[in-house]
């Protein structure tokens, strides 16, 4: 059996090496996300790599960030500073890591604002294997990364698909979104009754998860936060953690508050923004009105921190 295994491994090594080292155009990788999240992937790529405008403040997070933070408003309010909202549908800490690596490769970032919620997600972001480098996919820690194998499969088969598209000149061009800002405002207000119902449901006490399990679940996010922090500290980038809870949340601060404090400043917006039903599009997303209030508040906070920074 040993001989057979040895022969199989020797036979497969050149093929595996070829797949791992297969060079794929970064834009192709983002372009392949054309059917996802209103085709924002290609815009993210072009804003980082093709748009010559600076990125001083980057917002990373999910659709909550995308819908809640007006980067244009923040940029206009802070002269000489360019804020960009890189919110992308769904949640997963590893995507933040991939994006921050791409941003700092191209731009001189000064502040990074990362969305945090009541709890950390223990799963990989669905688009992580599509835009991450092979090294980041393969070397992800297997102990707490439940998606390691599926991510590796998705990543390498996607690379092969992109190579095939290149060879066969398959037209996979995505409609290109132009613009300097990523904020995607949503109009409309959630019905009061639906929000009340959700609040009631959230008030039902849930059994407490054992500490050891909580820690195990949080370890995926913690590991990526550590990596992000290391990458940022090497380039003197300040990290802010912006708390964006759901409507009717019982937590006044995130569960991983202490972890965030180790790496940066935690920004907890005032309750009146989140408690006022008029600010919500649905139970997870602020509408344009809520986004404006939140963006003004964030602008003040960033200005304040910068002033403090200058004084120090």
């Amino acid at each position: 059996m040993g001989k057979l295994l040895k022969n199989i491994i020797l036979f497969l090594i050149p093929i595996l090496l070829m797949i791992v080292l297969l060079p794929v155009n970064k834009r192709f990788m983002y372009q392949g996300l054309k059917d996802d999240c209103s085709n924002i992937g290609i815009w993210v790529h072009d804003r980082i790599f093709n748009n010559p405008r600076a990125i001083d403040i980057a917002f990373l997070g999910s659709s909550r960030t995308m819908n809640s933070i007006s980067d244009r408003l923040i940029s206009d309010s802070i002269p000489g500073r360019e804020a960009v909202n890189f919110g992308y549908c769904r949640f997963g800490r590893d995507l933040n890591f991939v994006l921050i690596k791409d941003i700092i490769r191209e731009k001189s970032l000064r502040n990074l604002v990362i969305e945090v919620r009541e709890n950390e997600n223990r799963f990989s972001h669905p688009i992580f294997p599509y835009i991450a480098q092979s090294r980041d996919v393969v070397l992800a820690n297997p102990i707490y990364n439940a998606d390691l194998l599926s991510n590796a499969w998705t990543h390498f088969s996607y690379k092969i698909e992109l190579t095939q598209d290149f060879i066969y000149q398959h037209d996979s061009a995505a409609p290109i979104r132009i613009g300097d800002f990523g904020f995607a405002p949503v109009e409309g207000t959630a019905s009061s009754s639906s929000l009340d119902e959700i609040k009631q449901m959230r008030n039902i006490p849930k059994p407490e998860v054992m500490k050891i399990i909580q820690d195990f679940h949080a370890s995926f996010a913690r590991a990526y936060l550590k990596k992000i922090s290391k990458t940022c500290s090497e380039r003197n980038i300040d990290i802010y953690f912006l708390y964006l809870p759901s409507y009717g949340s019982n937590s006044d601060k995130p569960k991983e508050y202490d972890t965030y404090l180790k790496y940066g400043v935690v920004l907890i917006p005032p309750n009146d923004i989140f408690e006022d039903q008029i600010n919500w599009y649905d139970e997870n997303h602020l509408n344009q009105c809520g986004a404006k209030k939140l963006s003004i508040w964030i602008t003040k906070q960033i200005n304040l921190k910068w002033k403090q920074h200058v004084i120090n």
Partner: protein
Amino acid sequence: MIIISSTIDYIIGLKLHITTIKSHRKLLLIVSLLVNLGILGFFKYFNFFIESFNELLSIFPINLDSSTLKIILPIGISFYTFQTLSYTIDIYKKKIEPTRDIYSFFAFVSFFPQLVSGPIERASHLLQQFHEKKAFNHKLCVAGLRLMLWGFFKKIVIADNFGILADSIFNPDLSASGLTIIIGAIFFAFQIYADFSGYSDIAIGIARMFGFDIIQNFKTPYYAASFGEFWRRWHISLSTWFRDYVYIPLGGNKGKISRVYLNISITFLLSGLWHGADFTFLIWGGLHGLVLIIEKHIDIKLHKIYYYPVVLICVTLFWIPFRAEDLGHLADMVNSVIHLSSYSFVQIEQIVSDFSMIRFSTLITVLVAFMGVEFLMKSKDFNEWVGDRRRITRILIYYALIFAILLIGNFSVKPSFIYFQF
């Protein structure tokens, strides 16, 4: 379902062995047939019969509000039902003795490599293998890996690529022209062969790695020189099942010629129905039965080289009813095919262009190479054929297959096999 069906057949098998009274033995066999075919009939054909009955009644002014059920087809039911049935019938016919080892029997029925889509095994061949002690066997393991590689190549490169083309053509919204449908039938012929024989190779390969021998299910069927030969090379485990448990018990080749034709017709109509609960499958089975009857009747003496294209063209065109979504879709397609005025290359050009012309040319090149290898293989399987080559040639063949999978294999389709639905 599989547990119910297996338990009943296990018990009936033991009872059949100890019972000597003919009527009791017959009763036991009938119970087994009723239970197995009853379960299969309910899950697979209940809605079909209800719908057909309603349609029939709608011709007359009778309105019976018989509604259909939302039934989920248990995975592999058509395959394991036939496998357990053959076990009981073989014991009844005293061809085999029942096993007392319930674990072996359950393993025989639910053996994972071939549970979902066959090959349909016989107890006389597979069951006794569960009684043997298994140990790692280098030669069998290599043989299994070779077959799996060949199966994956067929599935990912040939089947999944032709599948995209065939799906575009057989999309009922397309209103395909006659020529498009004929080309679609050719694409589907390659798809279904590579898909099903690829699955069979993978199943046989996995089983062989574990030290089990499963029967070869395909022997280069598209090189068959007659319809009879085609059925000796296509889905061998099913066609031999129908031969042994339907055709021969009906009388087979014995008796009046009209009786033989009737036997052929019944066997092929049932074989069509086995594939799916739809009239399109019945038509497909019926057409195959019909050409076999014609072949038998006129006792064709044509030279192989002249008759071979006739067989290939008919077999390919017969895939049209098999692939049709329903009778209405089939009628539309037949209408297009018989109207020569609708023959145009425009649709095909568009479909190939959407697929990518370079990819299509590469696919055709790979297909030619594949059919060439199939021709050289004759009745051997891939393991035997490649095993006869020199070591360096073998390694080059393995690399060629893997590179073909990587360069032209389709990774974007949902992993599924056509015969999973049966």
